[in-house]
């Protein structure tokens, strides 16, 4: 595998980096949607983060790379492996980042009958698809707004349930598929279906830096990386290491972070003021603020955390007129400023 560009060497794009870090700390936040032009470092950031994450423990022999500590009943392969032995063997594997190509066929995504074994050995067996490969990692969909509708349906379903159920070609298989869905796209090229939009936990908007100096820095760093990937990565290793430690610590801590009632109330008020549909907004807001507090090393979620994650967590949830072209981000920020003064 080629070296990935170091995460800490990405210039600017703070909101996107923050959102991806939050999703890495607490995958239950529910995926990140990145909207913006091409060539703004969207896929670079995702790949960089995955490369940064420590390898994960996976059960040897399980095709879905399940966590050995996962409870039984979630994965048939693990259950079969665990039966009869005290402790299954495990090994370390890199956190997967799986690309979902735009033209992917349904069988490639959900998995299908293993043709080779069916033809040569006469065995009916399941060949896992992209969803299985993305389990415990990231599923990256570039140009998610141009994705075929029926694939979008699939993603929505699996992302919500954390489980992929395959009923086709005489197969009946279910396997765990919990992943952080990262979608990117340019809204000018097409709208995203509202159902899918809502399914993303965080939504960020990226644009090319407008300051010349920043753009020069982007080009210089990328150029340096391409000429000498190893050397460049070595130079940024210490910085990346810091980010890695921050994520790991935050993961340990996130469950114990306290969310005071006053903050919950503020979150609820904020969502009411914005008129977001359903309760997903509040939930995501709370989870994201908690993950951010964990990243920051704070023990209690405060207004400051809420304020920083609110635009990402809410901007895509406003009930909106499809013909209204004013940015929803600005609306969120205004309401946030009203509701959480300071």
């Amino acid at each position: 595998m080629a070296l990935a560009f170091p995460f800490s060497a990405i210039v600017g794009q703070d909101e996107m980096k923050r959102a991806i870090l939050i999703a890495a700390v607490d995958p239950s936040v529910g995926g990140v949607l990145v909207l913006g032009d091409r060539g703004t470092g969207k896929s670079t950031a995702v790949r960089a983060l995955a490369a940064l994450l420590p390898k994960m423990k996976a059960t040897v022999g399980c095709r879905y790379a399940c966590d050995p500590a996962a409870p039984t009943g979630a994965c048939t392969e693990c259950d079969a492996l665990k039966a009869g032995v005290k402790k299954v063997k495990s090994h370390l594997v890199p956190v997967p980042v799986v690309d979902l190509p735009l033209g992917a066929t349904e069988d490639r995504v959900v998995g299908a009958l293993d043709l080779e074994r069916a033809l040569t050995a006469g065995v009916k067996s399941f060949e896992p698809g992209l969803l299985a490969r993305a389990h415990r990692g990231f599923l990256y969909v570039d140009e998610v707004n141009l994705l075929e509708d029926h694939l979008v349906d699939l993603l929505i379903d699996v992302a919500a349930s954390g489980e992929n159920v395959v009923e086709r070609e005489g197969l009946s298989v279910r396997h765990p598929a919990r992943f952080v869905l990262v979608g990117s796209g340019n809204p000018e090229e097409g709208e995203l279906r509202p159902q899918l939009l809502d399914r993303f936990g965080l939504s960020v908007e990226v644009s090319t830096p407008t300051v010349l100096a920043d753009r020069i820095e982007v080009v210089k760093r990328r150029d340096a990386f391409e000429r000498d990937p190893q050397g460049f990565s070595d130079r940024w290793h210490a910085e990346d290491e810091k980010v890695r430690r921050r994520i790991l610590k935050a993961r340990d801590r996130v469950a114990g972070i306290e969310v005071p009632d006053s903050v919950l109330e503020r979150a609820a008020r904020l969502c009411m003021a914005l008129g977001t549909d359903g309760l997903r907004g509040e939930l995501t807001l709370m989870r994201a603020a908690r993950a951010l507090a964990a990243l920051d090393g704070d023990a209690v979620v405060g207004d400051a955390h809420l304020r920083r994650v609110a635009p990402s967590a809410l901007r895509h949830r406003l009930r909106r007129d499809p013909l209204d072209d004013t940015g929803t981000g600005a609306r969120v920020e205004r309401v946030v400023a009203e509701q959480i003064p300071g």
Partner: protein
Amino acid sequence: MVAADPIAPAAGVPADDPSTVDPAVLRWADALRAAALLAVDPWGFGGVALKAGHGPVRERWLTVLKSLVPHGSPWRRIPIHAGDERLLGGLDLTATLAAGRPVAQTGLLAEADGGLLLLAMAERVPGTTASRLCAALDTGECALARDGLASSRPARFGVVALDEGVGDDPPPAGALLERLAFRIDLGEVPVGVTDAFGAPGDAGADAATVAAARLRMASVEVGDESVQALCATAMALGVSSARAPLMALRAARAAAALDGRDRVGPDDTSLAARLVLAPRATQWPAPPDAAPPEDPPDAPPPEAPPEPEPESDANEPPAAEDEDTVPEPQQPLDEVVLEAAKAAIPPGLLASLMLAANAAAAAGAGRAGVMRATRLRGRPAGTRPGTPRDGARLALVDTLRAAAPWQPLRRREALAREAAGAGAGAGAGAGKASASQRPTSTPAPRLALRASDLRVARLRERTETTTIFAIDASGSSALHRLAEAKGAVELLLADCYVRRDRVAVVAFRGRAAEVLLPPTRSLVRAKRSLAGLPGGGGTPLASGIDAVAGLAEGVARRGGSAVLVFLTDGRANVARDGSGGRARADEDARDAARRLRVAGHATLLLDTSPQPAPAAQALASAMAAAYVPLPRADAASIAAPVRAATGLGSRRAPGRAR
């Protein structure tokens, strides 16, 4: 660059009097330079989008390119409908069946490693293919995870995307274009120009210089001022992607390396800006005084009017001069580079670029293959004989059913063959499932399957609908009616949003029709284009109908269906050629309407005249449109009949495809 510069464009160009140089010659020279640069680092540059019809000019350029890359490096061609099994490799199904064990085949992408990949008819290439290429360009490898095979092979190649689009054909997939450093348009280069210096040697470089440059390139130094100049130029031209200045930087480095120098000079930077940045321009750079802040006040005013010809000349001759000094010492490099890039933007390109970008965006990278889609996507709808390639899905049960009756016969046959051919000629002839071929001795196969048994699933997909609005904005459609029409269209747009339809807007007024909005899913843009629509002027009805027919044909060609909605009073007074006269205009309009009828799209005509008018009625019957008179329209009352008449409202029955 120095006189001995191997890639100076002027090898065969009369450089002594540059002001008389034909722009086509310069363009050809630039094309050759791009070929030389590309040959230095095919994968690094991603490749080139070559817009040219099939013909001697393109062939010559390809010959030149081929002569520049090291002898024997891969040169592969992807046909338009190459499936995944050919692109990525996979299980060779026929061979697998014949051998009775998995036989893998290498894909084109891996085969092209280290060389160039020609993409035929790039503008029609399905999104799947484009996304495969993009992935390989990004990672430099070809990850294969299909048919039970999993491997990753190096695939560092450059793409030559042969764009044969003409007129308003949408350009190749945006994601792919973005990753190709160069864009060359040979459309207007006459063969005569290439005769003058189109021999393989005339690119200035040859395989040896390219090979030397490949070695040198990594060590070429780039000064900060060059990086800054390229970034500033990209910004001034409205090129937002960070890939563009990076590619330009690489081009500058390659140009210096070709030249045998160890440091990027100002001319290299200018060249890079011209070849890489200029074709991506989305805006005309602001005049120097309003330009980026680091512009010094002494910017020479004569530079301000950006006249393509003199500018390009200003840049060409220094290439032939034997000095490495900056040609205009007072001028900062930023400006020199920007001027160079500006010079390379042909007049009118920008406008067409924007239009093309819109069209491409609307078409979407994933949509080019809609016509094939029935094989790939959707819900099952029966089976047919065929091999499961290109993503077509094997229908296992039907395959087995097809094979079942033959089993006893085949088994007997296999046994007989085994007995007879234990010696030499085993496996000859049609013995596809011959067990005797296998070294490891499994007994006779449980199932003798032949390629002819295979059945694949047929899939059915909802075709995409594009609603094309044609709005008569002439003076005769009174202005308040125009407002009503706009309101109705907006209501319909909301409907289209629900159905995920695409919309397009054509307006006709004054002398001609104008496509305000090529088919798009972005309703915001549709609304914006409407809001800015002025009214008044004549009624060029024929042009309007023609424009709609053109759009609709494009939609149909891509496998979608078009619904046409005309909002007009049917009273034409401007003929096709833009001349006045009611009689001619009427005749033209009726002619256009009849042609439209032949195409057979679902059509609706909303009569916007104050009283139901015979003219509109006649027009509607000529184009076989449903006629809806709207004596007293408000927006809602227009929208309702459209929904009913086009049957759109009921189109998306959820269970339809099942």
